[in-house]
């Protein structure tokens, strides 16, 4: 578990971190401050009130901390001993070191200056939290592709991409208008309007092999075209981890039957083929039949040798 502190401790940490943040952002609005610290404005006002109370002289040997927020804008003075950000925790250090490592893999080797800074920062952080250099993260996205996607999204331009469709096992060139980056099942997708297919499509970013920014071609229709989906019933013959992961099923036993929904008949055909003797497709009958035919054709070829 990423450790969660109890509410009073969580609040203590937040109040201590408020002082340096306000010190370096004098005059910040209450609303914005609440957003930065991920609390509502009522909570932020209560936090500031507590901070103000604790800063009063007499309670502590600390000088009067001068905190003002009545106007809706926050300033702080005379808080020198607390105005520097607090040291990072182990988890925070780990998050930054891994994030930097990912960044390193995403930066072009030509930017030696940035790569060097990343290495130095990473060493300094690891030193602060006593972390051995045993963590590594790599990006699955090609640098040129990520550059083009970012540029297109920023300037509202189109993209020409070459895309490898896993289900069709085809490399196709498409003209798309990217809308946003979305994350599903731990993969990043580029949600787009595809001019080639004249429909909305999601492209898995790590399967985009090349991308070039281009001018937008035409108007995008408002609503997506309805695609027909297939419901398949799959019966488990041998429960394996591969089947569980491929069909995203958690409870598998011999003779378990489950349904899955797909827009691609190719996906279901290939998934059943790849699972071999471990599963049997019960329905729909036409896909059942095409699997039997395909397997027989392949078998004939092996037997002919």
């Amino acid at each position: 578990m990423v450790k969660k502190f109890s509410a009073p401790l969580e609040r203590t940490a937040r109040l201590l971190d408020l002082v340096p943040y306000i010190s370096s952002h004098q005059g910040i609005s209450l609303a914005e401050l609440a957003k930065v610290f991920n609390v509502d404005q009522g909570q932020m006002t209560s936090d500031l009130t507590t901070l103000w109370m604790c800063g009063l002289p007499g309670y502590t040997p600390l000088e009067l901390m001068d905190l003002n927020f009545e106007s809706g804008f926050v300033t702080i003075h005379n808080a020198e001993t607390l105005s520097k950000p607090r040291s990072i925790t182990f988890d925070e250090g780990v998050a930054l070191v891994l994030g930097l490592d990912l960044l390193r893999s995403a930066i072009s080797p030509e930017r030696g200056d940035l790569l060097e800074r990343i290495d130095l920062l990473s060493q300094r952080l690891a030193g602060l939290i006593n972390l051995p250099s045993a963590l590594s993260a790599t990006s699955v996205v090609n640098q040129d592709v990520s550059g083009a996607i970012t540029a297109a999204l920023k300037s509202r331009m189109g993209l020409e991409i070459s895309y490898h469709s896993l289900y069709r096992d085809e490399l196709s060139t498409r003209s798309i208008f990217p809308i946003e980056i979305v994350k599903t099942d731990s993969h990043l997708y580029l949600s787009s309007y595809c001019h080639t297919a004249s429909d909305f499509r999601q492209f898995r970013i790590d399967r985009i092999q090349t991308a070039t920014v281009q001018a937008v071609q035409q108007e995008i229709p408002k609503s997506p075209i309805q695609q027909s989906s297939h419901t398949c019933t799959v019966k488990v013959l041998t429960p394996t981890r591969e089947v569980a992961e491929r069909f995203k099923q958690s409870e598998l036993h011999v003779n378990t039957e489950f349904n899955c929904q797909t827009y691609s008949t190719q996906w279901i055909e290939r998934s059943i083929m790849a699972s071999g003797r471990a599963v049997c497709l019960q329905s729909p009958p036409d896909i059942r039949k095409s699997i039997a035919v395909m397997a027989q054709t392949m078998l004939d070829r092996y037997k002919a040798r």
Partner: protein
Amino acid sequence: MARVDRTERLLNVVFCLRGAARPVSRAQIRASVAGYEPEASDAAFERMFERDKDDLRSLGIEIEVGSFDPLFNDEAGYKIKQEKYQFELGDISSTEVSLLSLAAEAWQEASFGDVAQRALVKLRSIGIPSDELSIPASVHKLNDGGQDLSLITKAIAHNQLLAFNYLDSHLGIKMRSVVPIALSTRNGFWYLSGVDQEIQEIRTFRVDRISGAIAASAGPKDFQTPVGFDPSTAFSESSTHDFALIDVRVGKASSLRALAISTQSLGEWDQVKIPILNLDSLCSLVLWHGPDAFVQEPAELRDLVVEHLEALVKNHG
């Protein structure tokens, strides 16, 4: 006096010790920090103060016994050391602040998302504006490794022993005891490498295949972290000497081609040479490609493919 809650008392202790020029004695703390009831017994105060020290330590704030005052050497003084309280990253440039911000943003919606956000607030509090860097960070994201990543990294730092149930390829569950030495990502998954205590060899586990909770305990006293271990080699082909020869149709089977160490053109087909790391998963990949892939060698893989094809015909005919 209004009742002082725990947050206020903890803040008051920090303010008191950070604001004081010299170590503060227990008696002074008790007298001046609002929240320690003056009428409470000595024992009650001791308990409260010890608990507050523990609480603050869990937030990363270390209250230390300072030097004794030669004039009052009968009582210890307390202080919070500046170098331990403050984020001491040394001189830091706008570019470095930007790099760290991008590093934190890579965790959006993933395991360390909240933690990274908190680190980001601290970074911004340094007060150095960030540069506009031309790094397309939004396209590079870290995947969610669940809640275990924090536990695993702590265990790596402290050579702890991790015990967990791991799903094998037949959905069997086996208890593993591992001293972790590395954490890495590959193809969007998190992998933990460590010395498996049963066989005393390095093994690599996919974090999402760990079933249930991971238990951490003190590691073996004589544990030596293997030197020169590179997590990326755990996936490399160099560890095998067995190869498969597979014919793949021109323009097809990119996933098989991606694994090839050499490709030979045969006209309508290409022949690829692929290192065999796991016979079952290679067989599955061949079957996925249907009539676009045909195994030439070894016989062991051909037989396995044929066996599955026979079952597929029988089950779907």
